[in-house]
């Protein structure tokens, strides 16, 4: 594809994607006899060598339990763990390290808020989410409604997959206690105007939880500029390990919330007469945490910041536009999700070919995409499709990857013709 290389825009030339690819050892392999084209990044991202090295280094040299030891290894492990907290704080531009709680993933972070913040809800209170939420930002709220008699309200999306601000305004009321909104949709790629959504929620006296699981690897974040009350992350979707996630919460709010789980580390003192809970952030980190998780996550954050999140975003934006262009040439293909503000996701269906069959045929070409409902069944229902095929981009994807996708789709159509 020399013509494509010549036509490559400035960003592709200055952004050295080949060098970045070399930092991700998993990418250098053949699948079914073809070079791997990994386009399932919204499900999970691959890990740069720096993350693998950080995990190895931690277990090889510093491993010990944190916070309670007087010995050298324990103090090193504690230092690394707390350094990671500071790195996440800086990544989110939060005000204070104590606002960063380590959890298992975005799912656990949302469950923590639904459980702990949720205890202040009463029958008749209202919770608002949008149609484009991941199941993890729907089900914990439904469970909370079951427990309390609160009511879940849903902001619809339009045909392009955009959040309907006017309908949202209609749903907000003095009964609204919390609004759960995805920053970037995993099934549509829509990037939501969360700052405005938060402002309107605050005007109604409600709190806002922003699900940043998908946004985090694709844009520079600033929770204070967004004025999010809660912001949640999943480490594995931002080049870090699985099993580690983050709950950011405004300090006064977290202070006012009861603990989520009980156990070691989350207490100051325990007696059968009276147990005193620990301060933030430990109040919400019961038991021995996944110590290596934050350490790996910090390495991932360092890696993204070294490349530069704005440069990553520009590269991916360019690729998304190129991919959208190439897919538009595929006969019978319909994009699902065409919001004006969209990032890193190409979700589509092809007339007469089920997404599952598309996925199998692409797989035989070494191309990894996801097919199914993407844990967003209400989105599928909104578009009247049982499933979509979804290619999702990351910082290491190249023009060659989306060209391979387009070729693979043409082949799929051949098989079915």
């Amino acid at each position: 594809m020399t013509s494509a290389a010549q036509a490559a825009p400035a960003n592709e030339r200055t952004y050295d994607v080949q060098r970045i690819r070399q930092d991700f050892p998993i990418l250098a392999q053949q699948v079914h006899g073809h070079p791997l084209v990994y386009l399932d990044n919204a499900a999970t991202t691959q890990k740069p060598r720096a993350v693998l090295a950080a995990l190895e280094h931690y277990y090889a040299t510093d491993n010990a339990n944190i916070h309670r030891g007087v010995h050298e290894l324990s103090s090193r492990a504690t230092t690394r763990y707390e350094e990671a907290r500071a790195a996440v704080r800086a990544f989110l531009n939060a005000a204070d390290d104590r606002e960063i709680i380590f959890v298992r993933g975005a799912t656990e972070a949302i469950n923590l808020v639904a459980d702990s913040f949720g205890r202040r809800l009463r029958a008749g209170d209202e919770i608002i989410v949008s149609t484009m939420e991941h199941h993890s930002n729907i089900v914990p709220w439904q469970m909370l409604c079951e427990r309390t008699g609160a009511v879940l309200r849903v902001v619809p999306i339009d045909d392009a997959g955009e959040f309907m601000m006017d309908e949202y305004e209609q749903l907000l009321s003095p009964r609204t206690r919390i609004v759960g909104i995805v920053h970037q949709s995993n099934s549509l790629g829509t990037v939501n105007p969360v700052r405005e959504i938060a402002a309107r929620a605050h005007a109604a006296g409600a709190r806002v939880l922003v699900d940043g699981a998908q946004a985090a690897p694709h844009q520079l974040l600033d929770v204070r500029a967004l004025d999010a009350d809660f912001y949640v992350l999943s480490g594995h979707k931002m080049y870090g390990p699985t099993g580690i996630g983050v709950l950011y919460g405004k300090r006064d709010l977290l202070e006012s919330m009861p603990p989520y789980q009980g156990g070691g580390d989350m207490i100051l003192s325990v007696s059968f007469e009276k147990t005193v809970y620990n301060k933030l952030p430990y109040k919400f980190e019961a038991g021995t945490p996944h110590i290596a998780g934050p350490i790996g996550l910090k390495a991932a954050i360092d890696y993204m910041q070294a490349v530069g999140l704005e440069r990553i975003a520009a590269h991916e934006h360019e690729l998304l536009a190129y991919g959208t262009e190439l897919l538009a040439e595929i006969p019978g293909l319909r994009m699902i999700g065409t919001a004006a503000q969209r990032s890193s996701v190409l979700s589509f269906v092809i007339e007469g070919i089920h997404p599952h069959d598309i996925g199998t045929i692409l797989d035989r070409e070494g191309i990894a995409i996801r097919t199914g409902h993407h844990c967003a069944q209400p989105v599928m229902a909104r578009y009247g499709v049982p499933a979509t095929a979804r290619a999702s981009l990351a910082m290491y994807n190249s023009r060659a990857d989306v060209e391979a996708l387009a070729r693979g789709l043409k082949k799929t159509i051949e098989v079915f013709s």
Partner: protein
Amino acid sequence: MDDLRDLYQEVILDHGKHPRNFRKAPAANRSAHGYNPLCGDQVEIFLELDAAGVVQDISFQGSGCAISTASTSMMTQALKGKTLAEARALFEQFHALITGTGEPDPEKLGKLAVFSGVREFPNRAKCATLAWHTMCAALENRAEPVSTE
């Protein structure tokens, strides 16, 4: 590409695009619902069993991938006129074919042998067998939907 051609054989593509017995059976006295949460495939099987336990009519509705639609379509053709016991025995043959376990008898399988390519695609086995599991549920008149997960 060859194993793809083995998977997506002409007959399978044809049944995938033009499923047979794709309707509600007017006199159905058994039915069941099947669901594959992984890919969203939905199927509803309708059976008309006579007093002797012979399948007088069998049909289906739903949406699914080429493999699952073709499998359902060809199953309905294969089972018409069969007894309950014969239907179950055929499922065993088909299951052996799909999973590559045991020795399926090509004579008993007949046209269903075109699904032999699925063996090379273990993550598609559920697509091919959803209809059959659902058919068994319908025979037993099970109320709860069949799920592959």
